């Protein structure tokens, strides 16, 4: 049973928690501007290229607009979301931390300062229509920007004449924001909360419907493969500093962090496992730093490049380390992906493989609940699915792994249940 532990830690006010999170966009902004200046790059031109890109999978903003502009784009979106959290007086819980880091990460490939806005507007209109506070839906809307590429594709994909395409892009984004809340709430029952990126599953379904409709009109969404292919030591160094910072905040908040850290391993991670309320903010921030560092080392050991998609993978893991992910439930899943990678002959250093491995931790709760062997099998199944389902939604769902994770969980859970005998005790 997921009980809250007795927590003795330094009390953090809501503003302090927002400030702790704000360090990430602030550092990204400073880094982006300084990097662009040092390279003599035109930031405004880079931002314009990012905004005007169709952004379908996989469009790395480090290639489209340059490294400096990609970091500035992420920082601006980060600040915008933090402003909303403050504006609507949100409690900074584990899920909000996860949403913030997911949006921050995907702002390196897919989300830009323009294509996310119509979705927020759609969410606002939904809240007004249902006469519920905007704060009730803001969380879902933050995640649902997974479908932001469809806004860019319709606006800048050459489907309509210029001007009319802006209107169509706007309307599409608003429509997505309007329908995503009830859809996401309903879809979670398919996988019973064992897929942490539930919006990824929902967005996969929505993306499939939209892409199918477009294909009916003979509109084909061309696949894109723009990936930054060289490691930058400054980006790696920046991430190391930020993850050490998170661990430091954890230690500052809870002085017994080292002694108590193992208590986090007992949680299965199934939705809802909010570590901020179960083990406190100290252990949560420390766990975020640990998993961030582990993810970065994993990427470098495999010989991968820390580019836009990989940044998204790492930052999403960091975020969900506040909402279900911990080393014990992530490890079997990633091991399963690696084993399947060996079996099927994948190139371990390729960005496609690395992001599949990073995002596969969306189904970490399966390993947490049913043990490492089932976890390894789930990881293997995840790799086989995730490399084949992108074509269904044409790459307009950024959380492709969330879509795959939902299918894996929804497929495996009844089968696991079929092999169980008698009543199980939680």
């Amino acid at each position, binding site marked *: *049973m*997921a*009980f*809250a532990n007795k927590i003795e830690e330094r009390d953090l006010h809501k503003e302090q928690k927002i400030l702790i999170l704000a360090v990430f966009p602030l550092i990204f902004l400073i880094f982006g501007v300084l990097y662009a200046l040092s390279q003599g790059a035109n930031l405004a031109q880079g931002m314009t290229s990012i905004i005007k890109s169709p952004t379908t999978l996989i469009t790395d903003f480090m290639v489209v607009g340059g490294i400096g502009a990609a970091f500035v784009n992420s920082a601006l979106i980060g600040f915008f979301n933090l402003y909303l959290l403050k504006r609507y007086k*949100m*409690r900074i*819980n584990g*899920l*909000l931390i996860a949403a913030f880091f997911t949006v921050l990460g995907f702002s390196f490939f897919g989300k830009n300062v323009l294509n996310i806005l119509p979705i927020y507007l759609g969410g606002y209109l939904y809240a007004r229509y*249902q006469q*519920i*506070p905007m*704060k*009730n*839906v*803001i*969380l*879902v809307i933050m995640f649902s920007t997974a479908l932001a590429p469809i806004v860019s594709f319709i606006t800048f994909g050459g489907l309509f004449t210029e001007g009319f395409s802006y209107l169509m892009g706007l309307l599409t984004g608003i429509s997505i924001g309007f329908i995503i*809340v009830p859809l*996401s*709430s*309903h879809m*979670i*029952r398919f996988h*019973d*909360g064992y897929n942490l990126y*539930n919006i990824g599953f929902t967005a996969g379904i929505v993306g499939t419907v939209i892409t199918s409709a477009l294909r009916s009109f003979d509109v084909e969404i061309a696949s894109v493969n723009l990936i930054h292919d060289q490691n930058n030591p400054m980006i790696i160094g920046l991430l190391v500093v930020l993850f050490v910072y998170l661990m430091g905040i954890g230690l500052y908040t809870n002085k017994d962090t080292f002694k108590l850290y193992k208590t986090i391993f007992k949680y*299965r991670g*199934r*939705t*809802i*496992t*909010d570590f901020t*309320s*179960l083990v406190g903010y100290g252990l949560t921030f420390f766990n975020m730093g640990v998993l961030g560092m582990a993810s970065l080392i994993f990427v470098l050991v495999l010989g991968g490049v820390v580019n836009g998609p990989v940044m998204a993978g790492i930052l999403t893991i960091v975020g969900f380390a506040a909402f279900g992910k911990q080393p014990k439930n992530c490890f079997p899943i990633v091991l399963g992906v690696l084993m399947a990678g060996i079996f099927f002959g994948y190139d371990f250093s390729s960005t496609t493989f690395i992001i599949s491995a990073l995002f596969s931790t969306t189904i970490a709760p399966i390993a947490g*609940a049913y043990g490492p062997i089932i976890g390894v099998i789930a990881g293997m199944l995840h790799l086989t699915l995730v490399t084949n389902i992108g074509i269904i939604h044409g790459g307009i769902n950024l959380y492709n792994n969330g879509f795959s994770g939902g299918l894996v969980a929804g497929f495996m859970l009844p089968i696991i*249940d079929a092999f169980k005998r008698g*009543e*199980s*005790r*939680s």
Partner: protein
Amino acid sequence: MKHEVKKICKIVDELTTLFLKEDTNEVDFKIITQPDRAIVKIVDYNTKYSEEFIAHLKKTLNNQRQSEIEEYYWQLAGETDDDDELTLISVMIDSATVEKRDGNLYIELVRINK
């Protein structure tokens, strides 16, 4: 709020599953809906839960109402008997009293209409 009655039913569903599976073979639920709130009164007869466990349960249920999580996840409540969703129940209610008397566990949950 939409689906108000269904959300109360989901809370009852989750706790029915939990108590029948974990603790007892006799449990009463009384649900009262008023214009401004819903109250769920539960009697879990002949409870085997320890005082420490009950203190944990009280703390968890009194976490804090969090409407944004409720809006997203409320349909998960009562969906599985493999795991519990006490954290979800805690974000769907405003307050909870939990006490053990005469060998029975008495719980009262209050959910304010918003």
